[in-house]
Protein backbone atom coordinates (compact mmCIF):
# COMPACT_ATOMS: atom_id res chain seq x y z
CA UNK A 1 0.00 0.00 0.00
CA UNK A 2 2.77 2.36 0.91
CA UNK A 3 4.47 1.65 -2.35
CA UNK A 4 1.22 2.43 -4.14
CA UNK A 5 0.79 5.79 -2.48
CA UNK A 6 4.42 6.49 -3.11
CA UNK A 7 3.95 5.69 -6.73
CA UNK A 8 0.87 7.88 -6.92
CA UNK A 9 2.65 10.72 -5.25
CA UNK A 10 5.57 10.29 -7.59
CA UNK A 11 3.24 10.36 -10.55
CA UNK A 12 1.57 13.52 -9.33
CA UNK A 13 4.85 15.25 -8.72
CA UNK A 14 6.09 14.15 -12.10
CA UNK A 15 2.99 15.73 -13.61
CA UNK A 16 3.64 18.94 -11.77
CA UNK A 17 7.26 18.83 -12.88
CA UNK A 18 6.19 18.38 -16.45
CA UNK A 19 3.98 21.45 -16.25
CA UNK A 20 6.75 23.42 -14.66
CA UNK A 21 9.33 22.37 -17.18
CA UNK A 22 6.94 23.26 -19.96
CA UNK A 23 6.51 26.71 -18.49
CA UNK A 24 10.24 27.17 -18.15
CA UNK A 25 10.67 25.97 -21.72
CA UNK A 26 8.20 28.54 -23.01
CA UNK A 27 9.88 31.33 -21.07
CA UNK A 28 13.31 30.31 -22.24
CA UNK A 29 12.12 30.04 -25.81
CA UNK A 30 10.97 33.63 -25.52
CA UNK A 31 14.33 34.55 -24.02
CA UNK A 32 16.10 32.76 -26.85
CA UNK A 33 14.02 34.58 -29.43
CA UNK A 34 14.69 37.93 -27.83
CA UNK A 35 18.38 37.17 -27.62
CA UNK A 36 18.42 36.20 -31.28
CA UNK A 37 16.89 39.51 -32.27
CA UNK A 38 19.35 41.37 -30.10
CA UNK A 39 22.21 39.32 -31.47
CA UNK A 40 21.15 40.23 -34.98
CA UNK A 41 21.15 43.90 -34.05
CA UNK A 42 24.56 43.55 -32.45
CA UNK A 43 25.95 41.93 -35.60
CA UNK A 44 24.76 44.83 -37.67
CA UNK A 45 26.19 47.42 -35.35
CA UNK A 46 29.17 47.94 -37.59
CA UNK A 47 31.86 47.00 -35.16
CA UNK A 48 32.81 44.44 -37.78
CA UNK A 49 36.56 43.97 -37.90
CA UNK A 50 36.57 44.23 -34.12
CA UNK A 51 40.03 43.36 -32.89
CA UNK A 52 40.94 41.08 -35.81
CA UNK A 53 42.84 43.56 -37.97
CA UNK A 54 44.72 45.00 -35.05
CA UNK A 55 45.65 41.55 -33.82
CA UNK A 56 47.14 40.64 -37.20
CA UNK A 57 48.86 43.98 -37.54
CA UNK A 58 50.71 43.53 -34.25
CA UNK A 59 51.47 39.86 -34.86
CA UNK A 60 55.09 40.32 -36.02
CA UNK A 61 56.08 41.74 -32.65
CA UNK A 62 54.61 38.92 -30.61
CA UNK A 63 57.25 36.29 -31.13
CA UNK A 64 54.78 33.77 -32.60
CA UNK A 65 53.01 33.43 -35.89
CA UNK A 66 49.86 31.67 -34.81
CA UNK A 67 47.48 34.52 -34.01
CA UNK A 68 45.55 32.51 -31.42
CA UNK A 69 48.77 31.70 -29.59
CA UNK A 70 49.68 35.37 -29.82
CA UNK A 71 46.45 36.32 -28.11
CA UNK A 72 46.72 33.58 -25.53
CA UNK A 73 50.31 34.07 -24.56
CA UNK A 74 51.04 37.62 -25.43
CA UNK A 75 48.16 40.06 -25.89
CA UNK A 76 46.04 38.42 -23.24
CA UNK A 77 48.63 36.37 -21.43
CA UNK A 78 47.26 37.51 -18.11
CA UNK A 79 43.96 35.74 -18.83
CA UNK A 80 45.82 32.56 -19.59
CA UNK A 81 47.81 32.83 -16.40
CA UNK A 82 44.66 33.10 -14.34
CA UNK A 83 43.09 30.29 -16.30
CA UNK A 84 45.93 28.01 -15.29
CA UNK A 85 45.19 29.10 -11.75
CA UNK A 86 41.55 28.10 -12.24
CA UNK A 87 42.58 24.63 -13.33
CA UNK A 88 44.88 24.35 -10.35
CA UNK A 89 42.17 25.57 -7.97
CA UNK A 90 39.78 22.93 -9.26
CA UNK A 91 42.37 20.23 -8.78
CA UNK A 92 43.22 21.42 -5.28
CA UNK A 93 39.53 21.38 -4.53
CA UNK A 94 39.34 17.79 -5.72
CA UNK A 95 42.31 16.86 -3.59
CA UNK A 96 40.79 18.50 -0.55
CA UNK A 97 37.84 16.12 -0.78
CA UNK A 98 39.89 13.11 0.13
CA UNK A 99 42.17 10.46 -1.31
CA UNK A 100 41.60 8.89 -4.69
CA UNK A 101 39.41 5.86 -4.98
CA UNK A 102 41.37 2.72 -5.72
CA UNK A 103 41.89 2.11 -9.41
CA UNK A 104 39.89 -0.22 -11.59
CA UNK A 105 40.74 -3.81 -12.04
CA UNK A 106 43.62 -4.48 -14.28
CA UNK A 107 42.30 -4.41 -17.80
CA UNK A 108 42.60 -7.07 -20.38
CA UNK A 109 45.59 -7.65 -22.60
CA UNK A 110 44.09 -5.68 -25.46
CA UNK A 111 44.01 -2.43 -23.55
CA UNK A 112 47.36 -3.09 -21.98
CA UNK A 113 48.80 -3.71 -25.38
CA UNK A 114 47.19 -0.56 -26.67
CA UNK A 115 48.69 1.46 -23.86
CA UNK A 116 52.16 0.49 -24.85
CA UNK A 117 51.87 2.26 -28.17
CA UNK A 118 49.06 4.80 -27.70
CA UNK A 119 50.61 6.55 -24.75
CA UNK A 120 53.97 7.27 -26.35
CA UNK A 121 52.13 8.39 -29.45
CA UNK A 122 50.01 10.82 -27.43
CA UNK A 123 53.07 12.22 -25.69
CA UNK A 124 54.95 12.68 -28.93
CA UNK A 125 51.94 14.29 -30.55
CA UNK A 126 51.63 16.54 -27.55
CA UNK A 127 55.21 17.64 -27.93
CA UNK A 128 54.63 18.23 -31.59
CA UNK A 129 51.50 20.31 -30.97
CA UNK A 130 53.39 22.35 -28.41
CA UNK A 131 56.15 23.05 -30.88
CA UNK A 132 53.94 23.92 -33.82
CA UNK A 133 51.69 26.07 -31.66
CA UNK A 134 53.96 28.97 -32.46
CA UNK A 135 52.95 29.05 -36.11
CA UNK A 136 50.17 26.54 -36.72
CA UNK A 137 47.12 25.27 -34.89
CA UNK A 138 48.18 23.82 -31.57
CA UNK A 139 49.81 25.02 -28.39
CA UNK A 140 50.03 24.41 -24.72
CA UNK A 141 46.39 23.57 -24.13
CA UNK A 142 46.06 21.06 -26.86
CA UNK A 143 49.39 19.50 -25.96
CA UNK A 144 48.51 19.44 -22.30
CA UNK A 145 45.19 17.85 -23.12
CA UNK A 146 46.95 15.06 -24.96
CA UNK A 147 49.24 14.47 -22.00
CA UNK A 148 46.18 14.36 -19.80
CA UNK A 149 44.53 11.92 -22.18
CA UNK A 150 47.62 9.74 -21.95
CA UNK A 151 47.19 9.77 -18.18
CA UNK A 152 43.55 8.79 -18.50
CA UNK A 153 44.43 5.84 -20.67
CA UNK A 154 47.16 4.72 -18.30
CA UNK A 155 44.68 4.84 -15.45
CA UNK A 156 42.09 2.95 -17.45
CA UNK A 157 44.74 0.36 -18.10
CA UNK A 158 44.99 -0.21 -14.37
CA UNK A 159 47.59 2.15 -12.94
CA UNK A 160 45.78 3.91 -10.07
CA UNK A 161 48.18 6.82 -10.31
CA UNK A 162 47.60 7.35 -14.01
CA UNK A 163 51.32 7.21 -14.58
CA UNK A 164 51.90 10.32 -12.49
CA UNK A 165 54.89 10.59 -10.16
CA UNK A 166 54.63 10.73 -6.36
CA UNK A 167 52.77 13.48 -4.58
CA UNK A 168 55.75 15.75 -3.93
CA UNK A 169 56.88 15.72 -7.55
CA UNK A 170 53.31 15.99 -8.74
CA UNK A 171 52.83 19.16 -6.73
CA UNK A 172 55.85 20.80 -8.32
CA UNK A 173 54.72 19.80 -11.81
CA UNK A 174 51.25 21.15 -11.11
CA UNK A 175 52.41 24.56 -10.04
CA UNK A 176 55.05 24.78 -12.78
CA UNK A 177 52.72 26.54 -15.21
CA UNK A 178 51.53 29.34 -12.99
CA UNK A 179 54.87 29.67 -11.24
CA UNK A 180 56.96 30.01 -14.38
CA UNK A 181 54.36 32.28 -15.91
CA UNK A 182 54.22 34.59 -12.89
CA UNK A 183 57.93 34.60 -12.29
CA UNK A 184 58.61 35.45 -15.93
CA UNK A 185 56.07 38.25 -15.63
CA UNK A 186 57.50 39.55 -12.39
CA UNK A 187 61.03 39.24 -13.69
CA UNK A 188 60.15 41.33 -16.70
CA UNK A 189 58.58 43.86 -14.36
CA UNK A 190 61.64 44.01 -12.16
CA UNK A 191 63.84 44.53 -15.19
CA UNK A 192 61.72 47.41 -16.28
CA UNK A 193 59.70 45.94 -19.13
CA UNK A 194 56.44 45.74 -17.23
CA UNK A 195 54.49 42.73 -16.05
CA UNK A 196 54.19 40.15 -18.85
CA UNK A 197 55.57 42.60 -21.35
CA UNK A 198 57.98 40.54 -23.45
CA UNK A 199 60.77 42.30 -25.29
CA UNK A 200 60.17 41.25 -28.94
CA UNK A 201 63.66 39.79 -29.29
CA UNK A 202 63.24 37.15 -26.64
CA UNK A 203 59.47 36.92 -26.75
CA UNK A 204 59.58 33.67 -28.67
CA UNK A 205 61.76 31.92 -26.11
CA UNK A 206 59.93 33.27 -23.12
CA UNK A 207 56.64 32.14 -24.58
CA UNK A 208 58.08 28.73 -25.35
CA UNK A 209 59.34 28.36 -21.82
CA UNK A 210 55.97 29.35 -20.41
CA UNK A 211 54.20 27.03 -22.81
CA UNK A 212 56.36 24.11 -21.86
CA UNK A 213 55.70 24.61 -18.19
CA UNK A 214 52.02 25.17 -18.87
CA UNK A 215 51.78 22.00 -20.98
CA UNK A 216 53.22 19.90 -18.20
CA UNK A 217 51.00 21.56 -15.61
CA UNK A 218 47.86 21.15 -17.70
CA UNK A 219 48.64 17.58 -18.53
CA UNK A 220 49.35 16.64 -14.95
CA UNK A 221 46.35 18.57 -13.66
CA UNK A 222 43.95 16.91 -16.10
CA UNK A 223 45.29 13.46 -15.41
CA UNK A 224 45.23 14.08 -11.67
CA UNK A 225 41.68 15.37 -11.91
CA UNK A 226 40.76 12.11 -13.59
CA UNK A 227 42.42 10.18 -10.79
CA UNK A 228 39.92 12.04 -8.66
CA UNK A 229 41.60 12.51 -5.31
CA UNK A 230 44.76 13.14 -3.42
CA UNK A 231 47.47 10.77 -4.59
CA UNK A 232 48.24 8.11 -2.04
CA UNK A 233 51.57 9.02 -0.56
CA UNK A 234 53.63 8.62 2.58
CA UNK A 235 52.03 11.61 4.35
CA UNK A 236 48.46 10.86 3.47
CA UNK A 237 46.26 8.68 5.59
CA UNK A 238 45.74 5.29 4.09
CA UNK A 239 42.01 4.66 4.26
CA UNK A 240 38.80 6.47 3.62
CA UNK A 241 37.47 5.60 7.08
CA UNK A 242 40.12 7.69 8.81
CA UNK A 243 39.32 10.68 6.72
CA UNK A 244 35.62 10.49 7.47
CA UNK A 245 36.14 10.10 11.18
CA UNK A 246 38.26 13.19 11.03
CA UNK A 247 35.83 15.31 9.13
CA UNK A 248 32.95 14.36 11.36
CA UNK A 249 34.59 15.77 14.46
CA UNK A 250 36.00 18.98 13.06
CA UNK A 251 35.92 21.60 14.38
CA UNK A 252 34.24 20.56 17.58
CA UNK A 253 36.93 18.19 18.62
CA UNK A 254 39.65 20.75 18.68
CA UNK A 255 41.27 21.17 22.07
CA UNK A 256 38.04 21.11 24.02
CA UNK A 257 36.43 18.32 25.88
CA UNK A 258 33.38 17.74 23.75
CA UNK A 259 30.22 18.13 25.82
CA UNK A 260 27.82 15.29 25.94
CA UNK A 261 25.67 15.11 22.82
Amino acid at each position, binding site marked *: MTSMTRARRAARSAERNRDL*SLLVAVLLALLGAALTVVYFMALQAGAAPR*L*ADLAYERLPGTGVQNP*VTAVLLNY*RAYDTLM*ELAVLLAALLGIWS*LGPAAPGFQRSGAVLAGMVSWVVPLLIVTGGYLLWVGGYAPGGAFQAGALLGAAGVIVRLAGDPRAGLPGEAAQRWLLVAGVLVFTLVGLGLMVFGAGFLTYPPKIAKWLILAIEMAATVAIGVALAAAYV*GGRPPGPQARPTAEDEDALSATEPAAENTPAPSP
Partner: protein
Amino acid sequence: MLTAQFLYGGAGLVLFALGLWSFLVHEPLLRKIIALNITGAGVFHVLIAIAYRGDVAPPDPVPHALVLTGIVVAVSATALALMLGARLQDAEEEDRRR
Protein backbone atom coordinates in the same frame (compact mmCIF):
# COMPACT_ATOMS: atom_id res chain seq x y z
CA MET B 1 29.42 36.23 -44.01
CA LEU B 2 26.83 38.00 -41.92
CA THR B 3 24.41 35.18 -42.70
CA ALA B 4 26.84 32.56 -41.50
CA GLN B 5 27.58 34.56 -38.40
CA PHE B 6 23.91 34.94 -37.68
CA LEU B 7 23.08 31.34 -38.42
CA TYR B 8 25.85 29.85 -36.30
CA GLY B 9 25.48 32.41 -33.58
CA GLY B 10 21.75 31.77 -33.49
CA ALA B 11 22.46 28.07 -33.05
CA GLY B 12 24.67 29.05 -30.13
CA LEU B 13 21.80 30.96 -28.58
CA VAL B 14 19.52 27.98 -29.02
CA LEU B 15 22.08 25.84 -27.25
CA PHE B 16 22.29 28.42 -24.50
CA ALA B 17 18.55 28.38 -23.93
CA LEU B 18 18.45 24.60 -24.22
CA GLY B 19 21.14 24.13 -21.61
CA LEU B 20 19.54 26.67 -19.32
CA TRP B 21 16.21 24.88 -19.58
CA SER B 22 17.76 21.55 -18.82
CA PHE B 23 19.69 22.99 -15.89
CA LEU B 24 16.53 24.40 -14.40
CA VAL B 25 14.24 21.43 -14.82
CA HIS B 26 16.46 18.38 -14.40
CA GLU B 27 17.39 17.26 -10.94
CA PRO B 28 20.27 14.73 -11.25
CA LEU B 29 23.69 16.25 -10.86
CA LEU B 30 25.12 14.71 -14.00
CA ARG B 31 22.31 16.11 -16.09
CA LYS B 32 22.79 19.53 -14.56
CA ILE B 33 26.47 19.41 -15.37
CA ILE B 34 25.84 18.34 -18.94
CA ALA B 35 23.31 21.13 -19.17
CA LEU B 36 25.81 23.67 -17.94
CA ASN B 37 28.37 22.45 -20.41
CA ILE B 38 25.89 22.81 -23.23
CA THR B 39 24.95 26.28 -22.05
CA GLY B 40 28.60 27.18 -22.04
CA ALA B 41 29.13 25.61 -25.43
CA GLY B 42 26.31 27.79 -26.73
CA VAL B 43 28.09 30.93 -25.58
CA PHE B 44 31.38 29.68 -27.01
CA HIS B 45 29.59 28.99 -30.24
CA VAL B 46 28.41 32.58 -30.44
CA LEU B 47 31.96 33.78 -29.94
CA ILE B 48 33.33 31.44 -32.62
CA ALA B 49 30.58 32.57 -34.95
CA ILE B 50 31.38 36.25 -34.64
CA ALA B 51 35.07 35.49 -35.11
CA TYR B 52 34.31 33.95 -38.49
CA ARG B 53 34.89 36.45 -41.26
CA GLY B 54 34.07 34.50 -44.38
CA ASP B 55 36.24 32.30 -46.54
CA VAL B 56 38.71 34.97 -47.53
CA ALA B 57 39.48 37.02 -44.48
CA PRO B 58 41.22 35.22 -41.62
CA PRO B 59 39.08 34.86 -38.51
CA ASP B 60 39.33 37.12 -35.48
CA PRO B 61 41.75 35.34 -33.15
CA VAL B 62 40.62 37.11 -29.99
CA PRO B 63 37.32 35.26 -29.52
CA HIS B 64 39.14 32.03 -30.33
CA ALA B 65 41.50 32.63 -27.47
CA LEU B 66 38.61 33.52 -25.19
CA VAL B 67 36.87 30.28 -26.04
CA LEU B 68 40.04 28.29 -25.46
CA THR B 69 40.28 29.82 -22.02
CA GLY B 70 36.61 29.17 -21.47
CA ILE B 71 36.91 25.51 -22.37
CA VAL B 72 39.62 24.92 -19.81
CA VAL B 73 37.65 26.81 -17.19
CA ALA B 74 34.56 24.75 -18.00
CA VAL B 75 36.35 21.44 -17.73
CA SER B 76 37.93 22.50 -14.43
CA ALA B 77 34.57 23.40 -12.98
CA THR B 78 33.06 20.18 -14.33
CA ALA B 79 35.77 18.11 -12.70
CA LEU B 80 35.33 19.80 -9.34
CA ALA B 81 31.54 19.56 -9.48
CA LEU B 82 31.68 15.86 -10.33
CA MET B 83 34.05 15.15 -7.46
CA LEU B 84 31.89 17.13 -5.05
CA GLY B 85 28.99 15.05 -6.28
CA ALA B 86 30.93 11.86 -5.67
CA ARG B 87 31.84 12.97 -2.15
CA LEU B 88 28.22 13.81 -1.51
CA GLN B 89 27.16 10.41 -2.73
CA ASP B 90 29.63 8.75 -0.38
CA ALA B 91 28.40 10.81 2.52
CA GLU B 92 24.79 10.01 1.75
CA GLU B 93 25.51 6.33 1.50
CA GLU B 94 27.27 6.49 4.82
CA ASP B 95 24.29 8.21 6.40
CA ARG B 96 21.99 5.59 5.03
CA ARG B 97 24.17 2.81 6.39
CA ARG B 98 23.99 4.29 9.89
